[in-house]
């Protein structure tokens, strides 16, 4: 709504109000992205340590003993420390990178601009959501420095291993409690964030910006906010119950008669499957929270570099909504063999297979958009193509795991690790890379270096295939996941493949340093960026880079058409901006 800037929203004064405790959605978006950057570096180092230990178990890593005298005496990682590294790798990557960067980071920065608003509906709550996320991250990281080290029950934290406490092994004392508290705090932050996204999308759209005219990335963030709202609202009570089980002596998830470390546990009557149901009811929507913003970013960027409108925009939005709805009906496919009633395995496998249809439609729409395009191979465009290819590889392996009859063999093996890494670990990351290269000029007013960007793409694209495609073969050979060493007779011949994967992982990890260098250098010394370097149509390109405090310098745009106006004949250039008269 076009209205004179109300006093409430005057630009801040002073360094603290402007850059640290700022209510400006742009600053908060950048803060989220910086947090995600720190988190992804931590997570990547953890994955290096894991891979090094798997390939060469007796390798002594210098300096590790200082970080954890108990876990890695003499620099050699012990089995419990490997599991702690795995748990922290999973938790940090899923929560503090894949939920924070594409959704909270880019979403906070660009959703208000793309809908033509001055800021999020509730700026102070928006600021609170970042600082609560930061608190959650610090609580999680503090579990590294606790006596027994971080939790070791995986990012899924199945009870009773996660609920019994110190007896269940090192890391299950203070480390696991800190994990549960950190995740509960993270849920609160995400709920506050989702609240903002939905209110802004529904109420603060500028004149002419109807729902149908919203860009695809905005649609993706809005739908992700709705999924996140319901998913995190379920994970929070689950974490509260887990904390009560651990601290207050209740027995929600711990049955009677458990003997752990030769001690009969003082609990009775709980149900471990109750935790699995509560967790996976959140868990599967969470993986869609990680990938849907990626869908939105790719659908937003691909037309810009194909110079033609996205094929089937309404079908794309319909698929996003279908995926959002179906994501709440499929959680049981994580529990086919978990001891729940086998009939419900068949029940859950049907919607799991059905959800592949909208995913296939989305992929075909991207490929159809590339048909007949005039592709400009800039770095964001390459990452879009990479995203489509990697998402296809990851999605296809989902077919095997969706059916109980083949999941009997593949459940708990590296096939599962390959599947979710391809879809979440790589496709979602390619979405974040594409978003970064695409929006960097708008966020910082400077251009990133294209050659470094291309080097980063090629090394990463080839690297991730070398790392994660062989994991499918390990899965077929029955290699069990979450093992800290391969001592079984049938696993020993697979160790050379693990060593290949480790080398590829180190190589791909090193390639990310190019991205880091490019990111930091261009932030201060990149060439000046014009308002619309990629000749795109959406609202964020019709304001300066970086946008002023209230995004449009006091006169919000009036939107005349949708975001898909590319390849238009007769217009100046082959595109028409959304807000152009």
């Amino acid at each position, binding site marked *: 709504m076009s209205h004179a800037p109300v006093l409430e929203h005057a630009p801040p004064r002073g360094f603290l109000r402007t850059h640290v405790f700022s209510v400006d959605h742009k600053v908060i978006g950048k803060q989220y992205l910086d947090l995600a950057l720190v988190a992804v570096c931590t997570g990547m180092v953890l994955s290096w340590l894991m891979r090094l230990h798997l390939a060469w178990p007796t390798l002594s890593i210098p300096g590790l003993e200082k970080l954890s005298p108990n876990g890695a005496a003499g620099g050699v990682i012990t089995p*419990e420390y490997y599991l702690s590294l795995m748990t922290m790798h999973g938790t940090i990557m899923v929560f503090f990178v894949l939920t924070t960067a594409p959704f909270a980071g880019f979403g906070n920065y660009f959703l208000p601009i793309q809908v033509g608003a001055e800021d999020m509906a509730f700026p102070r709550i928006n600021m609170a959501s970042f600082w609560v996320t930061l608190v959650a991250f610090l609580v999680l990281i503090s579990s590294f420095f606790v006596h027994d080290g971080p939790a*070791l029950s995986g990012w899924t934290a*199945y009870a009773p291993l996660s609920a019994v406490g110190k007896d*269940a092994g090192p890391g*299950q004392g203070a480390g696991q409690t800190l994990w549960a508290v950190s995740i509960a705090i993270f849920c609160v932050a995400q709920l506050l964030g989702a609240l903002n996204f939905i209110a802004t999308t529904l109420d603060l759209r500028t004149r002419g910006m109807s729902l149908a005219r919203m860009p695809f990335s905005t649609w993706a963030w809005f739908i992700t906010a709705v999924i996140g709202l319901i998913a995190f609202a379920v994970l929070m009570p689950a974490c509260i119950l887990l904390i009560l089980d651990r601290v207050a002596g209740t027995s929600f998830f*711990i*049955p009677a008669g458990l*003997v752990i*470390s*030769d001690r009969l546990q003082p609990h009775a009557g*709980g*149900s*471990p499957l109750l935790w699995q149901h509560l967790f996976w009811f959140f868990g599967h929507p969470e993986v869609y929270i990680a990938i849907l913003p990626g869908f939105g970013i790719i659908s937003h960027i691909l037309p810009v570099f*194909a*110079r033609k409108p996205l*094929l*089937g925009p*309404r*079908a794309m939005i319909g698929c996003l909504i279908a995926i959002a709805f179906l994501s709440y009906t499929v959680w049981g496919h994580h529990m086919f*063999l978990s*001891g729940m009633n*086998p009939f419900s*395995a068949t029940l859950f*496998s*049907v919607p799991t*297979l*059905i959800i592949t249809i909208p995913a*296939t*439609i989305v992929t*075909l*729409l991207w*490929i*159809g958009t*590339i*048909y007949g395009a*005039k592709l400009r*191979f800039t770095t964001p465009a*390459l990452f879009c*193509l990479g995203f489509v*290819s990697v998402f296809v*590889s990851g999605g296809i392996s989902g*077919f*095997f795991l969706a*059916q*109980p*009859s083949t999941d*009997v*063999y593949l*459940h708990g*093996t590296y096939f599962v690790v390959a599947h979710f890494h391809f879809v979440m670990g790589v496709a979602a990351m390619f979405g974040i890379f594409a978003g970064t290269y695409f929006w960097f000029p708008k966020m910082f007013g400077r251009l990133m270096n294209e050659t470094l960007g291309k080097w980063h793409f090629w090394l990463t694209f*080839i690297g991730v295939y070398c790392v994660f*495609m062989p994991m*499918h073969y390990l899965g077929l050979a029955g290699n*069990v996941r979450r*093992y800290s*060493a391969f*001592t079984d007779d*049938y696993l020993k011949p697979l160790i050379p493949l693990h060593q290949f994967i480790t080398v590829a992982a180190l190589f791909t990890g090193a390639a990310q340093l190019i991205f880091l260098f490019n990111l930091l250098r261009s932030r201060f010394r990149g060439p000046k960026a014009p308002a619309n370097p990629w000749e795109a149509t959406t609202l964020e390109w019709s304001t300066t880079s970086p946008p002023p405090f209230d995004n449009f310098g006091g006169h919000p745009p009036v939107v005349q058409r949708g975001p898909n106006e590319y*390849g238009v*004949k007769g217009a100046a250039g082959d595109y028409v901006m959304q807000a152009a008269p």
Partner: protein
Amino acid sequence: MGKLFAVVLTIITVVSTAIFATRVWWLPTDISLHGPRIDHQLVETMVSCGVLFVVSQLSLAAFAWRYGDRRDGRPVKAFPGGATPMVVMAVVLVGAEILALTFVGAKLWAGIYQTPPDPNSLAIDVQAEQFAFYFRYPGPDGKPGATHPELMNEATENYFGLDPAHDTTARDDIVVPTLTIPVNRPILLTLRAKDVNHAFYVPELRIQQDFVPGLAIPLHFTAVQTGKFEIVCTQLCGLGHYNMRAYVEVMPQDRFDEWLKEKVAQQ
């Protein structure tokens, strides 16, 4: 640049599919009754997914090769028919594949996990604990003794918490760390966990089932080939998860009876 992307993607697709097709790494030979049908289901899924994978990757590569911007002023072309062929292709193609896989798969799954066990199958109790499997045979009296968690004492090999002093049926129970079973005879395992979640997985038997503390979960199969195979735990259970190794030894019926007699003598 588009051409480079197309070449790299084609190489990746060809190499990956080749390794899948030539089965360099593949499932171990199957030794269970229901195994062949699972292998068939897996191969069928592999073929149909392989086609889907190759077609979509190569079409992506082809379009990236063909539709680079050559500054020749040629207008962009929309996909003939717009989005509807995409939606139709997805719903029909993938939908048909899903129907086939679900229908066959559901029957196969029901055959293993939803059918009651064969009445004369050999009943063995399995206990998974932090970091070992133990198997208990009811012994000559045919009745397994009651288990008492408070009596469990690993030092005295009393893994199941039996109470031989008062419970006569527990006296002859045989507790061994290796699952020894006769070939071609249906086996009914009752899975119990002593402490946390574990899992029973034998790749060769194509069977897998989690242990859940507080539940006694039945699992039945029939081994059709003799030999010694490894049992591994696939559900994260703590620091020794990687080392929860046990063996399942499938013997001809006569050698199994001999083994059983010898174990009874040792009691």
